[in-house]
């Protein structure tokens, strides 16, 4: 009997290694083709006419002047939609084109196709739309209070959900209360919306190449609006330059296909940055009231909360965002009692939907601000109060759902605390002439501050995030594995949006099947759905599907080898790149064992079923959970209200880091987005009109705003996860925001200033006036 040597060395490109991503070098060198780089010979250029008003009745649309422009090939409106007139992820309440009423500034009213983009733009100018302006509904509380005119047939309230758990009247020695506001954040992916549609000969079907997060969901929605069966709409993933939730809803998909089918020619549509701000959903602005009750030692007794999410004009995923928010009201802390009231409402603001963190972000800013208040009231340090209440496996949420995953909340906090604080003084190491490095001071290149103007603060944030979809949704993933002559070919419809799934898919195949060469087939609708690249779910779900497909292929391989050598297949395993007999001496390379074989296995991976919430918000509605802690060090100029984040330390519950470098990439990127929400990123709408839909005024953190990040990965493989690996995409952006704000409050306190800072992003005036 041979003994399997556990050499402990990692074979290159397998799970646990950090191989170079296949798209990495071309992206860095600028050679990568994003969807906006797609073009086809003889293709026409589409453009969209959008509403200038937040709320108005359309009296008439006169296209005649547009048709007279030479080079204009098509002008289409709602009258030209052959199928369903509306679409939507959860309820189909959003028109392909507004026909009677426009409900937000930027709502599509018509589209054109022309020989070149400039002619298309002129055609838009030539379409005359007569509007009858109405007074917009902009205040979410007005939407909740009945009595206002319904701005949509589906009503002004998208969803109301309560949670009542334990004894909602319970109280303790310490009670803290606050109202928190979260501004509207944009996903601000760098690769703008773009697609190209190729009509089939005869124009009864279409192939759409595009940037999206979920090919099959798009396929279904597009086919319904085109009035054709799903198989008449084939989708191919183009290069995706980031998504963060903004590509979950339909934007230009239906318009592009309609134009292409109408003209029988390929049509390309591509948004500008300004149009992108109007063309996709954003993070919900929210107002959250919370009252926390604790005993004198700081142990939570009861959490009361009221959430109001402004969903904007159309429902998108608002009802799911709401449930995420309210079910995370207690944060990553055990709490026996609670009472939560949540509303997602419709207004004439820009529509809101998915964005990284999906409801958990808004909740976290509120509950973490509350935890700091509680710590103060109890005379505890921020991390003490958090450790004292830290959730453990088996604790229940306010929905009554037990958390059955690995829940290393306390470890996350302790490991974060163990990371070193920055050793550089304010202003960094002095320059040669003894002066501080202005680039390291708040205000940076603006040279606003001297070292003496600055105080440094430290703040904490800890969070919980549900992974995968909730409330009975079966967001399964499909993968196909083909093994022949030692080469694995994987096919899946998993949208690679930059997160690196294509890298780990190969790692999984190499590990499971002992091959070195893995070929990735085109990502398209030619295989079953993979679900959305969102909800931190693809490593778990599509990773699970790839793993399962590879295991199924491995069974077939073992059967084949078993037949050849007369050995029971159960005795085989893969050791490195060999098939070995665990009860004998046989060892043959996988390449040899699979020579001439044609093994192909397609597997769907489903997560366990979840439940709906009942009237009182009770039910096992979520699939799984992940946790993270953040500690921020921030230098603050209290007099000017400017800040510079100096360091973020984090320990994240990742289960099993399949590709550590990718995990760190997600962590650093997510923190940048959380920092952005904390201190600068907000879409400003005045009277329903966006005022900063461009990168001049919608500020994203630059390299100079981004601090060093110290990271500890908490690797406790989750027994429920197919590879032990939890999703890592969303947690980094959730509690980094409250950590930064807490650090600003801490710095101000050291300067003798008490500021609530109960709104993000924190603006300079919030600090200094």
């Amino acid at each position, binding site marked *: 009997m041979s003994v399997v040597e556990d050499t402990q060395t990692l074979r290159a490109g397998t799970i646990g290694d950090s191989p170079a991503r296949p798209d990495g070098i071309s992206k860095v060198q600028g050679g990568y083709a994003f969807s906006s780089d797609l073009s086809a010979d003889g293709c026409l250029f589409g453009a969209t006419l959008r509403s200038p008003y937040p709320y108005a009745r359309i009296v008439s649309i006169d296209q005649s002047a547009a048709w007279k422009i030479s080079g204009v090939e098509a002008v289409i409106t709602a009258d030209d939609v052959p199928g369903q007139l509306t679409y939507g992820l959860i309820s189909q309440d959003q028109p392909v084109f507004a026909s009677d009423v426009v409900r937000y500034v930027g709502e599509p009213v018509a589209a054109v196709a022309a020989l070149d983009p400039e002619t298309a*733009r002129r055609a838009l100018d030539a379409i005359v739309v007569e509007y009858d302006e109405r007074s917009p509904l902009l205040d979410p509380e007005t939407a909740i209070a009945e009595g206002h005119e319904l701005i949509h047939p589906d009503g002004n309230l998208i969803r109301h959900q309560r949670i009542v758990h334990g004894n909602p009247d319970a109280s303790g020695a310490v009670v803290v209360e606050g109202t928190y506001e979260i501004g509207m954040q944009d996903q601000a992916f760098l690769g703008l919306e773009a697609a190209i549609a190729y009509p089939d000969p005869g124009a009864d079907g279409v192939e759409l190449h595009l940037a999206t997060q979920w090919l099959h969901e798009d396929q279904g929605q597009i086919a319904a609006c085109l009035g054709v069966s799903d198989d008449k709409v084939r989708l191919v993933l183009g290069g995706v330059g980031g998504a963060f939730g903004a590509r979950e809803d339909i934007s230009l998909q239906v318009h592009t296909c309609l134009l292409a089918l109408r003209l029988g020619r390929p049509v390309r549509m591509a948004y*500008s940055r*300004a149009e992108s701000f109007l063309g996709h959903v954003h993070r919900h602005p929210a107002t959250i009231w919370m009252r926390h009750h604790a005993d004198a030692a700081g142990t939570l007794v009861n959490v009361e909360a009221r959430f109001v999410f402004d969903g904007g004009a159309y429902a998108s995923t608002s009802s799911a965002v709401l449930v995420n928010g309210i079910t995370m009201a207690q944060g990553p802390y055990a709490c026996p009692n609670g009472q939560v009231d949540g509303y997602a409402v419709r207004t004439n603001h820009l529509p809101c939907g998915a964005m990284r963190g999906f409801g958990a972000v808004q909740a976290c800013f509120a509950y973490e601000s509350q935890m700091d208040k509680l710590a103060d009231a109890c005379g505890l340090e921020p991390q003490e109060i958090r450790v004292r209440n830290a959730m453990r496996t088996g604790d229940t949420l306010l929905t009554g759902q037990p958390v059955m995953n690995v829940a290393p909340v306390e470890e996350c906090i302790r490991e974060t605390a163990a990371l070193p604080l920055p050793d550089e003084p304010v202003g960094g190491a002095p320059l040669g002439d003894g002066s501080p490095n202005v*680039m390291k001071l*708040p*205000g*940076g*290149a*603006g*040279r*606003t*501050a*001297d070292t003496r*103007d600055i105080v440094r603060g430290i703040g904490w944030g800890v969070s919980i995030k549900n992974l995968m979809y909730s409330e009975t949704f079966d967001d399964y993933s499909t993968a196909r594995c083909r093994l022949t002559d030692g080469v694995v070919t994987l096919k899946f419809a998993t949208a690679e949006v930059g997160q690196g799934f294509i890298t780990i898919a190969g790692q999984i195949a190499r590990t499971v099947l002992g091959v070195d060469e893995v070929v990735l087939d085109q990502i398209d609708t030619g295989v079953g759905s993979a679900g959305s690249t969102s909800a931190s779910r693809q490593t778990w779900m599509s990773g699970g599907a790839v793993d399962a497909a590879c295991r199924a292929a491995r069974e077939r391989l073992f059967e084949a080898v078993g037949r050849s050598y007369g050995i029971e297949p159960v005795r085989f395993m893969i050791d490195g790149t060999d098939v070995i007999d665990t009860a004998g001496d046989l060892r043959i390379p996988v390449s040899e064992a699979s020579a001439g074989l044609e093994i192909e296995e397609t597997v769907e991976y489903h997560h366990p079923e979840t439940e709906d919430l009942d009237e009182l918000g009770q039910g096992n509605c979520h699939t799984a959970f992940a946790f993270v802690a953040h500690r921020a060090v921030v230098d603050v100029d209290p*007099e*000017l*209200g*400017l800040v*510079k984040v100096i360091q973020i330390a984090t320990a994240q519950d990742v289960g099993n880091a399949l590709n550590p470098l990718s995990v760190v990439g997600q962590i650093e990127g997510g923190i940048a987005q959380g920092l952005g929400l904390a*201190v*600068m990123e907000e879409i*400003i709408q*005045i009277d329903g009109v966006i*005022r*900063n839909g*461009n990168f*001049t*005024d919608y*500020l994203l*953190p*630059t390299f*100079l*705003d981004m601090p060093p990040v110290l990271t500890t990965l908490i690797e406790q493989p989750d027994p429920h996860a197919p590879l032990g690996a939890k999703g890592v995409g969303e947690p980094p952006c959730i509690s980094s925001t409250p950590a930064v704000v807490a650090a600003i409050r801490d710095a101000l306190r050291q300067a003798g200033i008490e500021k609530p800072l109960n709104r993000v992003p924190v*603006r*300079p*005036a919030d600090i*200094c*006036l």
Partner: protein
Amino acid sequence: MTVAVPTTLDEAVRLFAAEPSAMLLAGGTDAMVEINDGHRRPGGLVIALNRVSDLRTWRHDAERRTLTIGAGVTYSELMQEPIATLAPALADASRTVGSPQIRNAGTLGGNLGTCSPAGDGLPVLSALGAQVRIVSAAGERAASVDDVMVGVKRTSLKPGEMIAEIVLPVLDGWQGYAKVGVRNAMVIAIASACLVVDTDARQLSIALGSVGPTIVRCPEAERQLAAAVDWAALSVPSDALDEFVGLVSSASRPITDHRSTADYRRHAVGVLAKRLARRAFTAGERRS
């Protein structure tokens, strides 16, 4: 649309005289943004100025103590020696502009041509009392920079006139520029200030950006502080500094918009004024 690429100033002026509605294009960092945003559509002629070598040079006249900067000199060039020593505030302001790419393309003449109250070069030009040499087919005229700037994105340049050079005094004394934005780089000023001290003349000047339709000067504050300075010790009593801050803030005429509020801007220019003065002078005891 045609693009003319003159190589001499005379040629550029002639082209402009023939078609005064032509669009001048220097670094294009404002002009291209306006075109891409659909705010401007060049119809006929675009005159590209970046090959006009006369506009891309600068010279220092040590005798007259002037620094003359061609309209086409870029921020990257203004940040370097010896300009950085001859006009330190201009170098400070140039360092705050955009990103390296923008500083490599963007020019001082373009900043003045756009005449945004947030233009980072403009408070410096105003505080230094810069003279602008303007050329056209009709000849040449000089105007003070404060007279060139007449409103938000409005100059007093007449059709066919272009900015050739900007003449600055080379002064003894501290000078500096500071700018508040909501990000640590690559940001439009929501308030800015330039302080220039002329120790020979025992005068000082302060000019504010983003707090009025054009750059705002604060003559009262300038007189007050100059009178309070101990010019031998280069120090200033701390209560005089407080008074200066108040005068600067009240000289500002800010508005509230999507970038910031009037209250914050008024407050911020006061703080900037104080900090610039603190860098220029040591703050002494209070006057008793």
